[in-house]
C-alpha cells in the first residue's frame, strides 16, 4: 500500500543505484549505511517456488514466480486464489485500558463504536490533515488493538506511534505499543473467490461467520493464527498473521490445494489498482487529505461531531466547503498505459488539470487504468481528459472506481 516516485533504472545491475524504489514501496529515504534487506520468514519458500526476489522497501520479496506471468497470476487470483507474502508490513499490538482513546487521538476512526473483533481501514493524520499512512486497525477488545500498516512507512509509523503514546502515558493514561518484528511474525494474504473454501478445510474458525472486516484467533493447519477477512485485491479473502516459525508450514498447507498458487508484488499492484485501492507514496501521502484522496468515508460520523482528530478543522472544513483537487479513476481504451507523474489535461482546453499517481494495464479488463488527481470540476465519471505520455496527448476518461466490482463477503 505504499510507494515512490517514478525512478529510472538501468537494467544493467551494476549501474543501478544501491537501493531503489518500487510501486508498493514508500517514500523511503534510503541511506548507503542502511543494513541489508531483510528476509521474511517465507524467504526460503519464495526461492523454492521460483520467486523472482527484489528489494522492496528494505525487504526481499518476490515480484512474481516462475510458473505464471504477471497477468496470468493476476487473472488466477481473480478466478481462483493466490497467497501473497505480506510479512514486510508492520504488525503492531497495542494494549492498555486507554488504548482506544489513544488511537482515536491519532486517527479519525470510531473505535468506540466498533464491536470487538471488527476491523477498519483508517489513516494516521498529521496536524494539517495530511495522510502519514493508511492502515487496518482491529479492535480485539476494549483493551487490545491489532494494527497493520505499510512497510515503506515503518520508520515514520513507529516514530509516530511511539511519540504519541509516550505523551499519552505522561498524561496518566495506560497504553503500551509493541511492534512485532518480521523475524517473529509473518503475515500472508490469501485472496480470491476460492480462498475461503480452501482455508475452511484447514481451520476451526467458522468462516461463514467471519464477515468482511472482522477478525478472529483460531487454528490454521494446527497453528494458532489471527485471521482477518480483508485484503488488497478487491476479492474475498483473508490475511493470516502467523508466528514466524510456523509460517512455512501454514503456507505449504494452503498450497496443497490446486486452487491456490503463490503470487508476488507485481500482481498485487495491478490487482489493487483495478480494485481502486490506494498505494501509499503514489496515490496518497502527507501532502493530501482523506477528502482530496476521495476517502472522506474514513472520517467516522461520530468523529466529525467530536472534531478532535489531527487536522480535524481543515478536514471538516473541506468536507463542508469542498476541495480544489480530487483523486479519480482514469480509463484508457488504447495506447500505452499512463504511469505515475504523467500530466493530465482538459480534453477541451488542453490546460493542465492534474497528474497521474499510478497506472498500469488492467489484465481483467484489457484496457489501461490509472488513478490521479484532477481539478474538482473534472472529477465526474465520463469526463474526457488527455494524458501526456512521452510527449503525446492520449485520450482518456474519468472512470468510477473500483474498476472491477468488489467481491467482499458482506452479510446482508
Amino acid at each position, binding site marked *: 500500500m505504499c510507494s515512490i*516516485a*517514478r*525512478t*529510472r*533504472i*538501468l*537494467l*544493467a*545491475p*551494476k*549501474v*543501478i543505484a544501491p537501493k*531503489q*524504489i*518500487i*510501486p508498493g514501496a514508500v517514500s523511503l529515504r534510503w541511506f548507503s549505511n542502511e543494513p541489508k*534487506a531483510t528476509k521474511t520468514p517465507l524467504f526460503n519458500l519464495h*526461492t523454492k517456488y521460483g520467486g*523472482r*526476489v*527484489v*528489494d*522492496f522497501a528494505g525487504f*526481499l520479496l518476490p*515480484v*512474481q514466480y516462475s510458473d505464471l*506471468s*504477471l*497477468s496470468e497470476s*493476476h487473472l488466477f487470483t481473480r478466478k481462483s486464489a493466490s497467497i501473497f507474502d505480506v510479512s514486510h508490513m508492520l504488525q503492531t499490538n497495542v494494549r492498555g485500558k486507554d488504548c482506544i482513546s489513544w488511537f482515536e487521538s491519532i486517527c479519525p476512526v470510531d473505535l468506540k463504536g466498533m464491536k470487538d473483533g471488527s476491523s477498519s481501514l483508517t489513516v494516521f493524520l498529521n496536524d494539517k490533515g495530511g495522510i502519514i499512512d493508511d492502515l487496518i486497525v482491529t479492535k480485539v477488545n476494549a483493551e487490545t488493538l491489532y494494527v497493520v500498516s505499510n512497510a515503506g512507512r515503518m520508520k515514520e509509523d513507529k516514530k509516530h506511534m511511539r511519540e504519541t503514546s509516550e505523551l499519552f502515558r505522561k498524561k496518566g493514561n495506560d497504553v503500551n505499543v509493541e511492534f512485532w518484528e518480521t523475524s517473529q511474525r509473518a503475515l500472508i494474504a490469501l485472496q480470491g473467490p476460492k480462498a475461503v473454501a480452501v482455508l475452511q478445510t484447514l481451520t476451526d474458525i467458522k468462516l461463514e461467520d467471519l464477515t468482511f472486516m472482522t477478525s478472529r484467533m483460531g487454528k490454521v493447519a494446527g497453528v494458532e493464527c489471527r485471521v482477518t477477512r480483508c485484503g488488497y485485491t478487491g476479492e474475498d479473502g483473508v490475511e493470516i498473521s502467523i508466528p514466524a516459525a510456523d509460517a512455512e508450514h501454514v503456507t505449504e498447507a494452503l498450497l496443497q490445494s490446486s486452487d491456490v498458487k503463490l503470487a508476488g*508484488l*507485481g500482481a498485487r*499492484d*495491478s490487482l489493487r489498482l483495478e480494485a481502486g485501492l490506494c498505494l501509499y507514496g503514489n496515490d496518497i501521502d502527507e501532502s493530501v487529505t482523506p477528502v482530496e484522496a476521495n476517502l472522506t468515508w474514513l472520517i467516522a460520523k461520530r468523529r466529525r461531531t467530536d472534531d478532535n482528530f489531527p487536522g480535524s478543522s481543515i478536514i471538516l472544513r473541506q468536507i463542508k466547503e469542498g476541495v480544489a483537487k480530487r483523486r479519480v479513476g482514469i480509463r484508457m481504451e488504447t*495506447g*500505452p*498505459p499512463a*504511469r*505515475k507523474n504523467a500530466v493530465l489535461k482538459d480534453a477541451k482546453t488542453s490546460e493542465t488539470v492534474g497528474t497521474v499517481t499510478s497506472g*498500469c*494495464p488492467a*489484465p481483467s479488463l484489457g484496457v489501461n487504468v490509472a488513478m490521479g488527481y484532477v481539478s474538482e470540476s473534472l472529477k465526474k465519471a465520463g469526463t474526457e481528459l488527455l494524458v501526456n505520455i*512521452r510527449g503525446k496527448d492520449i485520450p482518456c476518461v474519468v472512470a468510477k472506481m473500483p474498476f472491477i466490482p468488489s467481491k467482499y463477503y458482506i452479510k446482508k
Partner: protein
Amino acid sequence: MVVCSVFRVTSRLARSSLGAQCCARALYSTEHKARFYTKKHEWVSVSDNIGTVGISSYAQDALGEVVYVQLPEVGKQIAAGDECGALESVKAASEVYSPVSGTITETNKEVESKPALINKSCYEEGWLFRVKLASPEELQQLMDQAAYDKYLEEH
C-alpha cells in the same frame, strides 16, 4: 534500454537463472547473423548496411510481458544512443535507444499489434526497427555475443 519505475531484480538467484537463459538462447542462434549489443541491452545485426534492432533476452526477461510498443517513424534520422521508442510491460515503462546512427527504414508492424512477440522471440520475430547505417564503424563500439555474455555475468 532503461526500465522506469519498476521492480529491479537484485537477487543472485534471479540473476544466475537469467544468465543461464541468455546463454541457452545464444547457443540456439549461432547460425544467424552476428548480433552486437549495447550496455542498455539493445542488439543490432547488420546486413547490406541495414541494421535490424531489438532488445536482448535479458532485457525482455527483466521487463516481463510487453503490452505496448512505440516505435520511431520511418524516415526519421537518429544518432547512436538516441531515444527512439518505448516498451511498456505490466510492471514497467522503458525507453529504447538506438545502438547505431542512421535513418529508420522500417518498423516491425507485427510487433506493434502483438507486443508479446518480444518476449516470445526477441531475436527473430520480435525485432523492433531497421535502420540504414550512417556510420558502420560504430559497430566496433558495441559488444559481440561473447563480450555481452561476459558483461551479463559480471554485472
